[in-house]
């Protein structure tokens, strides 16, 4: 029963996607819309059922499949593993995916590639579910690459737009860089455990904790090496600083995609992976330190950039990166369930924000620049309310989602005696509140800055978009307080000390984040409602700094100069100089020239004159006789030759 449910949950989205992809172009939009949403709806129901059945149990459900790669001692099997961690992810993925599917009916109405779009969304859901239910690292990679592919296809959905194509390509490549880390990471684990399955690896860790490996003469702790490599993979997928530049560009995708893939689910795959390998992380303090540092850096950097962007989706995208940073910070400090908690709340409030932003963009005739919005809240009150809910949850005001999950991470920082990380988190909170309210105010308040044509078309989105939006908003309201006890409890296994200690922190520490949030909101209010000159004043005074963050720290330009241009130059160099001049002229061409040259030289000897030939004959005969004599000088005496000749005459 459970197995059947699990199989249905996984394969219903695939079925829907295949139907829409193959028959959608023939049978029309209505068919694609019903088949994909229908399948997603059923999958959501079955996953809910799974939650009801498996939630109270302590054992994981495992459905074995057929063998995938079986060579010698190596055996990788397909399968489904559903423990509490997977369960949380399945619920998030299926539900938000369903909401986004329904939302897309309204948002993507009239698009010529509607069926293709719905099919991609369903394929993505399938791969994401495979990822979170994988019982081994190789199958996880199957899902991992599958969601990467879906992301590529969805970012490049409008393939007539060169910018979308470039963004899609960039996303895929950046993710592949992370993937190299992932693959090398699991190969390192294989070296240690001779298997890719989770359970033998996780139970076998204590035996292997002292294993060292030599690399270029250095003794490396094998587990640390493996986990760091896996973390590189997670950085690529979850857009952590260094490998983050694809995420803002990925906003070329239609907005429902941004909500589902690039906010709620796919980008959290990295966090999920790290939580999945938490039994390994427990033995690798160095890796955890690195994760905390990268997480903290991403929190601050991404939030700073978000403060000065003008594209509504780009702001939310950087916000996503920053929030993922919080989750990694928690993982680095062993607060795995706190990370999962924030992942859950973030999935809902960020999906709300993105779908809200989509609703705004829809209303504003595809305008995305918040400097060209303003004064529209009366026209689209429902969207406005939901954007408020999302922002309140994001900023973490009391009784909203972020207050529970983000503040828990801050408290973990505090009890782990990580003052720098704590400070980064706090700065992040101020910046988060600032950009969130900057977005709200510039988008909805003040005087309208859009032209009359846009303003005259302004209207609230259709029901198909509002229903998912409202549902997500409602869940956002309840998810924080509702799940707090679950996540700080022992849902994911034995309760860990960090979380316990975090709950015991004093009230002063617990209020600090709230004050920070209020500070951020206050500054935003001051800047954009009261003294509207101040922002431009600040821009002028700190022009360099502003430009630096406005251009997203010039990281793209840096990468272009460091990697892209040199690679292409190297490619041309290797081809033109290496292949065509070097190898060709030394190898085949060189041999050809050499033999031609030799042939020509020998040709010269063939003059056709008899005396030339006779001379050559004499020379040759002399050389031959001389050679024989010289070679046999000790055995063959000259006298014997005379003797021989005499006898021959006679």
């Amino acid at each position, binding site marked *: 029963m459970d197995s059947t449910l699990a199989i249905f949950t996984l394969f219903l989205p695939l079925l829907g996607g295949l139907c829409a992809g193959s028959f959608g*172009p023939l049978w029309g939009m209505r068919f694609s819309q019903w088949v994909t949403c229908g399948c997603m709806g059923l999958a959501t129901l079955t996953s809910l059922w799974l939650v009801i059945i498996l939630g109270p149990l302590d054992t994981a459900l495992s459905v074995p499949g*057929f*063998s*995938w*790669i*079986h*060579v*010698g*001692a*190596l055996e990788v099997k397909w399968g489904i593993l559903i423990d509490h961690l997977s369960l949380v992810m399945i619920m998030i993925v299926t539900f938000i995916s369903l909401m986004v599917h329904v939302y897309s009916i309204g948002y993507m109405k009239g698009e010529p590639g509607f069926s293709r779009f719905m099919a991609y969304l369903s394929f993505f859901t399938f791969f994401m579910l495979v990822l979170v239910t994988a019982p081994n690292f*190789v199958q996880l*990679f*199957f899902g991992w*690459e*599958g969601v990467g*592919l879906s992301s*590529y296809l969805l970012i*490049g959905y409008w*393939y*007539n*737009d*060169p910018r979308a*194509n470039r963004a*899609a*390509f960039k996303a*895929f*490549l950046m993710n*592949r*860089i992370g*993937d*190299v880390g992932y*693959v*090398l990471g699991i*190969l*390192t684990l*294989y*070296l240690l455990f001779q298997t890719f399955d989770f359970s033998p690896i996780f139970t076998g860790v204590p035996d292997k904790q002292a294993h060292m*490996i030599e*690399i270029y003469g250095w003794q490396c702790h094998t587990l640390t090496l493996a986990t760091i490599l896996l973390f590189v993979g997670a950085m690529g997928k979850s857009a952590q600083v260094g490998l983050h530049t694809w995420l803002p560009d990925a906003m070329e995708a239609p907005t429902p995609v941004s909500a589902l893939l690039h906010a709620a689910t796919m980008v959290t795959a990295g966090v999920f992976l790290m939580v999945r390998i938490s039994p390994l992380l427990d033995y690798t303090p160095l890796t955890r330190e690195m994760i905390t540092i990268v997480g903290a850096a991403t929190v601050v950097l991404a939030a700073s950039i978000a403060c000065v962007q003008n594209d509504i989706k780009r702001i939310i995208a950087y916000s996503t990166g920053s929030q993922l940073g919080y989750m990694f910070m928690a993982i680095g400090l062993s607060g795995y369930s706190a990370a999962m908690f924030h992942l859950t709340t973030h999935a809902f409030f960020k999906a709300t924000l993105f779908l809200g932003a989509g609703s705004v963009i829809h209303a504003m005739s595809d305008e995305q620049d918040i400097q060209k919005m303003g004064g529209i809240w009366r026209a689209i009150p429902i969207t406005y309310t939901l954007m408020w809910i999302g922002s309140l949850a994001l900023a973490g005001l009391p009784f909203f989602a972020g207050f529970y999950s983000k503040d828990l991470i801050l408290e973990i920082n505090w009890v782990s005696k990580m003052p720098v990380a704590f400070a980064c988190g706090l700065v992040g909170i101020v910046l988060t509140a600032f950009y969130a309210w900057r977005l709200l105010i510039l988008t909805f308040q003040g005087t309208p800055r859009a032209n009359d044509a846009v303003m005259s078309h302004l209207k609230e989105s259709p029901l198909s978009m509002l229903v998912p939006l409202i549902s997500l908003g409602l869940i956002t309201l309840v998810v924080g307080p509702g799940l707090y006890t679950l996540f700080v409890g022992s849902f994911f296994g034995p309760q860990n000390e960090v979380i316990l200690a975090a709950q015991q922190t004093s009230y002063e520490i617990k209020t600090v984040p709230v004050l920070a949030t209020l500070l951020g909101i206050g500054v935003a209010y001051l800047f954009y409602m009261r003294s509207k000159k101040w922002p431009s004043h600040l821009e002028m005074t700190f022009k360099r700094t502003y430009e630096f963050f406005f251009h997203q720290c010039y990281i793209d330009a840096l990468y272009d100069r460091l990697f892209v241009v040199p*690679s*292409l130059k*190297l*490619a*041309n160099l*290797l*081809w*033109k100089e*290496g*292949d065509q001049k070097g*190898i*060709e002229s030394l*190898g*085949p061409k060189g041999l050809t020239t050499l033999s031609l040259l030799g042939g020509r030289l020998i040709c010269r000897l063939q003059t056709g004159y008899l005396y030339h030939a006779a001379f050559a004959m004499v020379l040759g005969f002399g050389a031959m006789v001389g050679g024989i004599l010289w070679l046999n000088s000790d055995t063959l005496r000259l006298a014997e030759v005379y003797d021989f000749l005499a006898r021959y005459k006679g």
Partner: protein
Amino acid sequence: MHPLPLLSMIVFLPLLGAVSILLSGAKRSANARWVALWVSLVTFVLSLVLWGRYDPTLGGFQLENTMQWISYLGLTYHVGVDGISLPFILLTTLLVPLCILASWKGIKKRTADYMMAFLILETFVLGSFVALDILLFYIFFEGVLIPMFFIIGIWGGPHRIYAAFKFFLYTLLGSGLMLLAILYIYFEVGSSIPLALESVFDPKVQTWLWLAFFASFAIKIPMWPFHTWLPDVHVEAPTGGSMILAGILLKMGGYGFLRFSLPLCPDASADFAPFVFILSIIAIIYASFVALAQTDIKKLVAYSSVAHMGFVTLGIFTMDAAGISGAITQMVSHGMISAALFLCVGVMYERTHTRKIAEFGALVYRMPRYAVIFMLFILASLGLPGTSGFVGEFLVLLGTYQVNIYAATMASLAMILGAAYALWLYQRIIFGPPTACTFTDLNGRELISFSPLLVGVLLLGLYPAPLFKVTEGAVMKLVGFSSLLGKS
């Protein structure tokens, strides 16, 4: 012993087809096409029967046929299959009908001759995969060059003569050295194929033998820096010729390494392994970069073949079960993927008569089916999990990582570079703002020729067990050879 000499039937049926085309009069090209197609299809069906008859639980060679040939030389006609040759036989018999289908409309002149050349080629290729007599192997192995020379030289592009000669001479040069090695073996221990050998050559002799074989196989597969013939030849070859060249002829190099270098010269193979690793790594990275710079689609695919074959040589010389299985998988997988990619190029060439990337763009609007199929093969080429490309690449990396972490790390860069050149190619051809192109989408014949490859690539990606089942025994035997060495 089965009463019917199944294996010999498979090998010589295509030749029989060629003869029947010749006898039936070469004037009617339509007739020749159908004969060639049917003969190759029957050969494929027979090879499926062969697969069914093959018992993977028994080690060694099976379904052998032996016949006295030139008795005073001790030369016998001796053929048989084992786990290493069977996948290549299936690959060959699968690809030839597809090549014939791909050449249905594209070959306008001397069609009957073309079909004959293809069928003769099939006989020679199959013969070299099943030959168990070392001189017989040589005859088949070299025989392949003759029909291929004509296919390139008669039905090729503008510089076909140059390309045909380059192909012929380059590969012949390597084979000349191999002939010396084969003669040496023949005079020392007789002419039956090495797996039957119990005694191992003296290490010094092994070194020379290994180098002689290496010269031939490294050019054939081709390894860096012996690869420069490949792009030139591919560019000039007709679509069917490119498909068979990339799909099968390159694999004869890998097959040779597995059949001769490893079992005959285990010591030398172990000694030379680091050297092969270095060349393979250079091939993988260098060729991937060069592929990035190409402006001609066929050249790009040709260079990607060099990179993929780098994985094959890397995997073979890990002398590890996973590495060698990975190398075989990679060869079978690349056989299908590269054939399909060349078919993709051919399909467009028939419509536009150009292969320059810059002259394409936005094909997705008029050719959605083509876009989907091309995408799937591009993804297989970059090794996306779920396609055969991943299984091969991953197993090779796994095997390599066990013996040499640095080599595996360098090779894994191909994951990035492979994605870069493949996807970039795809985007430039398929996507972009709509243009006024009026090409028709894939027709039924083209769809039929793509579909078996598509099924194969996905099947091998999701459920490669049938392949591993066939190869396992032979691979273990090979690994056994090298592990015995470690103990002594």
